[in-house]
């Protein structure tokens, strides 16, 4: 039986708990949760009450507090404060229900509390079953529990580095006999006929296990610590939960979950589920996409046909008839699901919540696939790897009103996407259309992965990058689909402006940049290669700049020469003008012939 003596109890040989009441504490959250439940007033039985830190607040709320514990010393202190207390060994499960009924003494029981008790019991399920039996006898009051979370990020981070530090109190209290995750608590409660009524978990980013705080697994600036936090947060919402504070109602349903922790993992009834997204506006395209699926060489897959429409009364019957037209071996594997509201990602997420297969792949109703699309995914699947094939691109357009065709193919196939997945490249832009990857259902379950419904476009790219940062990607290196780009008409590519796509791309790049990045082996070479290319570009750019400067210098010199020539030219012009003036002058016309004769005489004399 758990004992929670006051820290002042020097005689106690057990751990010293200082559970003074504070609203911002697990006890405060228990009281808050009780207030939210707004129960009819009556007695509250606090099993394993210790020094009863919440007796006062509960009494103030109008409840009759009744403490129950095996620790006589603790009960003595209750008595000194005028609080009702009863001695009871909760470990005697076969007597528990009868004894609780006895000490209730005919009073109406408003609730039963189990705060920091379950983890101290050697066997969880028999104990909870006994409590459940007691609740039945007491008139089915709700049960409130407080249980420490052993999956806090601090514990997980240290465990990766081989550290498991027991402490006198806290998450790894050395007297704990059982450890709980949120998943286990839910499973144990369900197995004992306890249905969750409400939750008000107590959370702290840094737990009592946050030591030594400069350990690389814990230090906030450390990339390791940051990465562990990102992964932990992606798995479930309890990375910062210190105590699970839950209220349960007794119920008749008793499930028997698996003994393993992975109770929610997909059982893999089929190798693959294909999620087809349609608005039902293009029945011919939808029929053709389904025809491609019906013609697959591997047919052990099912189809979730997500009809995203605000007009289900009209659209659903049409889609249902369209599916029923197919042969029964295919049509029977198609489940039609209506989805209302939300953006493009809503139908995808509703499908992810319905998976019962090993893998999931996606197909929009205007894309098409080859006969080996499914087979390639299934063949390459396994080991938790995301499977990636390649799409060819084809341009199509809506027909003119006079044209009797469902759509017009405008181009032959273009093979623009890389055969091999490059995560670094995908941080910049998308090379993997939604029809070219299949994700393991287990990955989706473990990290509760969903498409971002806030995004107007590029939700597939963002989803894939998140997946690829968590799991390996295996390439089939096969072209198995055709991604159709609409030149006009209704499609995401034509409805949304290029600016919107670019802006969303930048937002997603920023978002990725906020998180630490773990790249797969081989990515370093890719980065080195990119850096080398960048260095080469920088060098060329430098050469160009230098050449430009040199050219500028030469141009300046040329300019100077031109200026000098201009001066010379002007001087020559002046000489020419002077010459013309002289030649044309009256004096020159009179004296010129004489001057030329004198000059000749002068030169002859020189020779003689």
């Amino acid at each position: 039986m758990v004992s929670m003596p006051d820290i002042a109890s020097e005689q106690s040989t057990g751990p010293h708990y200082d559970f003074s009441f504070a609203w911002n504490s697990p006890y405060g959250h228990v009281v808050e949760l009780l207030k939210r439940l707004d129960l009819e007033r009556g007695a509250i039985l606090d099993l394993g009450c210790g020094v009863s830190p919440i007796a006062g607040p509960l009494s103030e709320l109008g409840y009759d507090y009744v403490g129950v514990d095996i620790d006589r010393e603790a009960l003595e202190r209750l008595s000194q404060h005028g609080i009702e207390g009863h001695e009871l060994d909760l470990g005697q499960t076969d007597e528990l229900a009868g004894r609780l009924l006895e000490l209730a003494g005919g009073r109406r029981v408003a609730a039963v509390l189990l705060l920091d008790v379950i983890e101290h019991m050697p066997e969880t399920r028999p104990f909870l079953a006994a409590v459940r039996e007691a609740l039945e006898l007491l008139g089915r009051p709700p049960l409130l529990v407080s249980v420490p979370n052993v999956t806090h990020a601090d514990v997980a981070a240290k465990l990766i580095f081989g550290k498991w530090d027991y402490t006198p109190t806290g998450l790894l209290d050395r007297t704990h006999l059982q450890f709980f995750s949120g998943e286990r608590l839910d499973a144990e409660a369900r197995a004992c006929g306890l249905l969750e009524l409400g939750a008000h978990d107590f959370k702290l980013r840094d737990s009592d296990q946050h030591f030594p705080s400069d350990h690389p697994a814990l230090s906030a600036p450390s990339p390791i610590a940051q990465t562990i936090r990102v992964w932990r947060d992606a798995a479930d919402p309890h990375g910062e939960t210190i105590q699970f504070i839950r209220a349960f109602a007794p119920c008749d349903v008793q499930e028997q979950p698996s003994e393993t922790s992975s109770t929610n993992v997909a059982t893999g009834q089929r190798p693959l589920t294909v999620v087809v997204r349609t608005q039902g506006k293009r029945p011919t395209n939808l029929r053709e996409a389904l025809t491609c699926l019906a013609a697959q060489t591997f047919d052990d897959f099912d189809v979730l046909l997500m009809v995203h429409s605000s007009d289900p009364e009209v659209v659903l019957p049409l889609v249902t008839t369209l599916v029923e037209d197919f042969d029964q071996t295919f049509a029977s594997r198609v489940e039609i699901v209506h989805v209302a509201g939300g953006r493009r990602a809503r139908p995808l997420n509703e499908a992810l919540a319905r998976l019962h297969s090993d893998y999931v792949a996606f197909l929009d109703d205007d894309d098409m696939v080859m006969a080996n699309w499914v087979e390639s995914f299934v063949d390459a699947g396994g080991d938790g790897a995301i499977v990636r094939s390649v799409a060819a691109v084809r341009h199509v357009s809506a027909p003119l009103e006079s044209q009797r065709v469902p759509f017009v193919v405008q181009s032959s196939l273009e093979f623009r996407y890389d055969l091999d997945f490059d995560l670094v490249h995908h941080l910049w832009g998308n090379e993997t259309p939604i029809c070219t990857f299949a994700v393991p259902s287990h990955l989706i379950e473990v990290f509760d992965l969903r498409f971002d419904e806030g995004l107007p476009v590029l939700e597939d790219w963002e989803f894939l990058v998140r997946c690829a940062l968590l799991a390996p990607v295996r390439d089939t290196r096969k072209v198995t689909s055709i991604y159709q780009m609409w030149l006009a008409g209704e499609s995401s590519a034509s409805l949304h402006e290029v600016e919107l796509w670019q802006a969303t791309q930048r937002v997603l790049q920023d978002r990725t940049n906020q998180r630490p990045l773990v790249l797969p082996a081989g990515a370093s070479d890719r980065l080195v290669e990119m850096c080398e290319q960048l260095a080469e570009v920088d060098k060329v750019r430098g050469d160009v700049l230098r050449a430009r400067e040199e050219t500028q210098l030469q141009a300046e010199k040329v300019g100077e020469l031109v200026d000098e020539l201009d001066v010379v030219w002007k001087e020559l012009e002046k000489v020419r003008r002077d010459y013309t003036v002289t030649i044309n002058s009256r004096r020159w016309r009179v004296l010129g012939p004489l001057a030329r004769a004198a000059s000749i005489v002068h030169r002859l004399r020189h020779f003689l």
Partner: protein
Amino acid sequence: MPSDDSQRVLRVQTVLYRDELKQLWRLVRGLDAAARKVIDAGLVGRVEWVLGDSSPSPAINAKDPQLMLAATSTGLSDVTYEFFGANLGSSGGQNRLAEGHSCDLLLVLNPDTYPSPTALLELVKALDPPHVGIVEARQLPLEHPREYDLVTGETSWASGFCMLVRQKVFDELGGFDDEHFLLHCDDVDFSWRARAAGYGVVVAPYAAVFHDKRPSPNDAWPTPDHEVYHSTLGRLMLAKRWGRPDIVEETITLVEADSSEVRHAALDEFRARSSAGRVPSLQSDSGKIAQFVDGEYARHRF
């Protein structure tokens, strides 16, 4: 042809050559659903499927057709199988299957296909105008680049992967010319002869039929040797019949410059047949019908 459409018989003919049984099960399921749809629409009264096998040994078990029929008998009335015991090619196989059988509509269909549920319905509807003799389905997922009129559907020729023909047109034309076209260009020649006889050849864009073709990543379409051989020989034969000696000479020049032994073998065969007088005779009015455009037999859209 019965005046009442609901009494018409649609006969689907498929020629096999070493095809896997699994592929035929895929086809029969799609075909059965498509047959149910066209019958429910009152456009035909009966759809039967006949398989002819050109393989060296039977590609399927003799009981398989009845098993298929039993498993999918909502639309198909009958499934039969004939082992030829010789490789008759696609054209010879189709002719053999059509021999001695009366029906109203005849569908030539490849074994590596899967019709969409409305494919037969749309094909039959497109054949409704009296002048139309042949209707071709639209191929999924890789649409044929051949040009066709987006309003009327009219085109140069119809591909034999899935071609619906009026039986009387088939008979009038004497079926495919299996003497000169064993595997390739038999559909082109058949279409052009139909057009020369005054019949229209159209594409039915809403009649979608999946055809199991797979591109390779580098845009190179893997082509087996026998296709290279027969496409080369077929081109030479086609140009001979349709009055284009320039195309014959051009093709010979190209093949001679080519290192492909398979193409050379095809050319040798053509020369041997020419010497023996086993080439097609010139078709009258050939100039108005035949189209030889950039190595193809119609203008292509892309």
